[in-house]
């Protein structure tokens, strides 16, 4: 629903919103509406690049409390206006874009930090807090959330909860869904609900998990209690070069199967090692695949874990040891990969084909995607690394990149090309045992695959949506709902 700004209905709704959150917290000016019309999804970036306006919200509302969110939801519910939660806008799937106008609920004013509970090692906060700010607060108290994603500087905790995000230490500390104790949520009708206070229980299905990954389509997550950890006494890294990514994958999988429990692991394919890792570290890694891993915790235990891990890397797989320094390069530069100059950028067309699979399938998924991209889109380059490792498999962070001069100038043609790559690559991944996806979410970008992904379970998801949001006002057009 687009409400004409010069209509009296616009003024009626604005008055009610102002009453709910205060005059200063309802913005109808162009600059901020513009700012909320482009997130980290390539399509709106390209659209703006080509001088086309992107769909905008009618109102940008900044609630300061759960009660204010509830009031806004009741107003939206009454007038059947779309509400799109917006955290930092750093989502790459277009999840926070107000494609049907209405209200953008910018959550960043809800940034309260309530401190660490030193008995339970948990922390409670409002969800609009930027992840970096939360982490700094915890650090000051001697703790860490251990949620250290590359978008820590810009994304909110609410955004991570809504997308089931992850950070670089996921292999030991888990994804955000493994870190959550409980949630407070405002439903589309404005009711305030809380999920059970602990994540391990046998009191029926887990409502916390229902809202994690719901991408703002089932309600607004307003508060969270997360686990925290004391800062480790020691954190050590080590890196190896293997002749090819297959050998490196075998070594990495062996390390996971050994259950030594690394806190992080990354494996870059030969192309990404050569073009990307070399550039970021400022050294020449001309041949082979770069594998880095680390352990953290008590120093004596970390030393022992590292000793056994080295035996696997060197004794079993004959990796070329780059030493502790070679591993620290990665830890120190882990975010540098994401700055302009190191990251891809419009006018290039690029996308992260985030896929997850078990060890039995992950290489097949890699080759299926790489082959289809290379064959069908000869102008595109395909690179990949394996980011988040579990006992059973890992995440493939594959990317395709078209040079700017190979992207059609017409924005519709550019979008069509872009979507075609996704269609081919994702179908190839799914056909080979991959799941779309591990941590970026669905949003607008991948909504069309959700029915395929869920199969006969899709009506269950749709039924939950219908029950919680009968008028379909919560983030319409996202998550395939």
């Amino acid at each position: 629903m687009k409400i004409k700004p010069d209509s009296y209905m616009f003024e009626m709704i604005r008055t009610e919103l102002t009453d709910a959150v205060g005059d200063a917290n309802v913005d109808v000016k162009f600059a901020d509406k513009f700012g909320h019309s482009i997130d980290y999804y390539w399509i709106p970036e390209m659209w703006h690049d080509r001088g086309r306006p992107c769909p905008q919200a009618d109102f940008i509302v900044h609630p300061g409390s759960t009660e204010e969110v509830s009031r806004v939801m009741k107003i939206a519910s009454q007038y059947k206006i779309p509400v799109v939660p917006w955290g930092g806008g750093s989502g790459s799937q277009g999840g926070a874009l107000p494609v049907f106008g209405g209200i953008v609920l910018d959550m960043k004013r809800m940034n309260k930090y309530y401190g660490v509970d030193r008995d339970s090692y948990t922390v409670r906060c409002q969800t609009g807090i930027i992840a970096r700010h939360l982490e700094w607060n915890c650090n000051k108290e001697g703790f860490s959330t251990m949620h250290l994603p590359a978008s820590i500087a810009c994304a909110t905790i609410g955004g991570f909860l809504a997308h089931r995000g992850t950070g670089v230490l996921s292999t030991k500390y888990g994804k955000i869904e493994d870190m959550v104790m409980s949630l407070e949520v405002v439903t589309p009708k404005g009711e305030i609900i809380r999920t059970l206070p602990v994540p391990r229980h046998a009191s029926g299905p887990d409502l916390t998990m229902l809202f994690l990954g719901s991408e703002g389509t089932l309600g607004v997550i307003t508060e969270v209690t997360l686990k925290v950890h004391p800062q480790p006494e020691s954190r050590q890294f080590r890196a190896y070069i293997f002749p090819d990514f297959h050998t490196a994958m075998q070594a990495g999988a062996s390390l996971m199967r050994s259950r030594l429990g690394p806190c992080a692991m990354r494996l870059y394919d030969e192309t990404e090692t050569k073009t990307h890792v070399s550039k970021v570290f400022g050294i020449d890694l001309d041949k082979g695949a770069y594998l880095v891993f680390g352990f953290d915790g008590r120093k004596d235990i970390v030393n022992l874990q590292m000793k056994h891990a080295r035996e696997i890397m060197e004794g079993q797989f004959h990796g070329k040891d780059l030493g502790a320094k070679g591993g620290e390069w990665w830890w120190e530069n882990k975010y540098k990969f994401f700055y302009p100059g190191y990251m891809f950028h419009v006018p290039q067309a690029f996308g992260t084909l985030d896929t997850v699979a078990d060890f039995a399938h992950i290489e097949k998924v890699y080759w299926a995607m790489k082959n289809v991209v290379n064959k069908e889109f000869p102008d595109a380059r395909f690179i990949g690394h394996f980011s988040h490792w579990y006992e059973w498999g890992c995440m493939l962070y594959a990317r395709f990149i078209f040079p700017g001069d190979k992207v059609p100038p017409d924005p519709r043609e550019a979008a069509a090309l872009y979507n075609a790559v996704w269609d081919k690559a994702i179908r190839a991944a799914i056909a080979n045992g991959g799941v779309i996806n591990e941590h970026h979410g669905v949003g607008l970008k991948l909504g069309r695959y959700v029915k395929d992904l869920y199969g006969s379970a899709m009506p269950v998801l749709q039924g939950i949506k219908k029950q919680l949001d009968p008028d379909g006002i919560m983030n319409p057009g996202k998550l395939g709902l």
Partner: protein
Amino acid sequence: MNISKYEEAIQNCRFCFMCRHLSAIGNVRFTEADTPRVRAAMLYGLRTGTNSFDDEDFVDALYRQDLSACCVHHCVNHFDENGLALAARADVVEAGKAPEAVKALAAEFSASASWKAAGKGDVAWFLDGTTAGDKDAVAAAKKLFAAANVAPKTITGGCIGKALKLLGFLPEAKAAAEKFAAFLAAEGVKTLVVSNPAAYDALTRDYADFGVKLPCKVLHVSQWILQAKLKFAKKPAAPVYPLADDFLRNYDGIDAPEKLLKALKAECRPFGTNDEETYNCGEGAVVLDRLHPELVEALAKYVAARADNPEKDTLAVASVYVKRALAKAGLKAVTLEELAASCL
């Protein structure tokens, strides 16, 4: 357009989120428009027609920027997002779209560009209007000069170009700079000691950009104290929380403030949760307190909320602007001169 000199920042910042956590205004207004990403995207939109200086909020977003340069300092490529914003302000002015409040301020600063000198010798102390408004800071500087047996010529007066440059009035800023340089030459100044970091930055960086040659060496007061090799009899009475200065750290990259604190044997405690953000309440924007006093107040509250003990803590700052802004939120700050003078 002036912004075309900052093509690199336009192209790279417009879709980049990596310094969002440091957007001081964004962190108190909770907006997207107040981030390097969106400002750069709006400036890019000027060329394609999606954005225009007719949008008053766009122009205001440019003028309410804190200009701390924390983003530039943080950025691995040091893309000059701040330079871009200043160039954009100059374009706004050239396009005749400067807000009335901005024009009025510029007229006031232009008219203020004249100076007086009192005293003798070729060492001078530039006592800018902001510092002059703080009796304790002035007294401390005088005590330090006396301890060093230096009786500098004291130069007082108005805008030496910085505020005009920040408002986007470049020809007027350059004219003020030329006038001040000529004044210093006429006064035979060979060494100029400057208290206000903004003035130091104007003299060391802006003047070079304008092609204005100074007849003298310029020292920030912290550099001068170190050079003067003063004997300090005691260390500061209480621990201090030093705040990294927008100009001295982010723009000029000088480490004299830290060295001075070391020389004073000050017990320094880390303020807030990190050393990346600005806690300077818009110091880098120099006149933010005139254009948007409500934002300076919000920034000061933000800082106060991060103090260990807001009623008791003493913050060590390089500028009177910051001291004054923090006082509005009930925080106690001392300038580096005051701290050094207390140790004599």
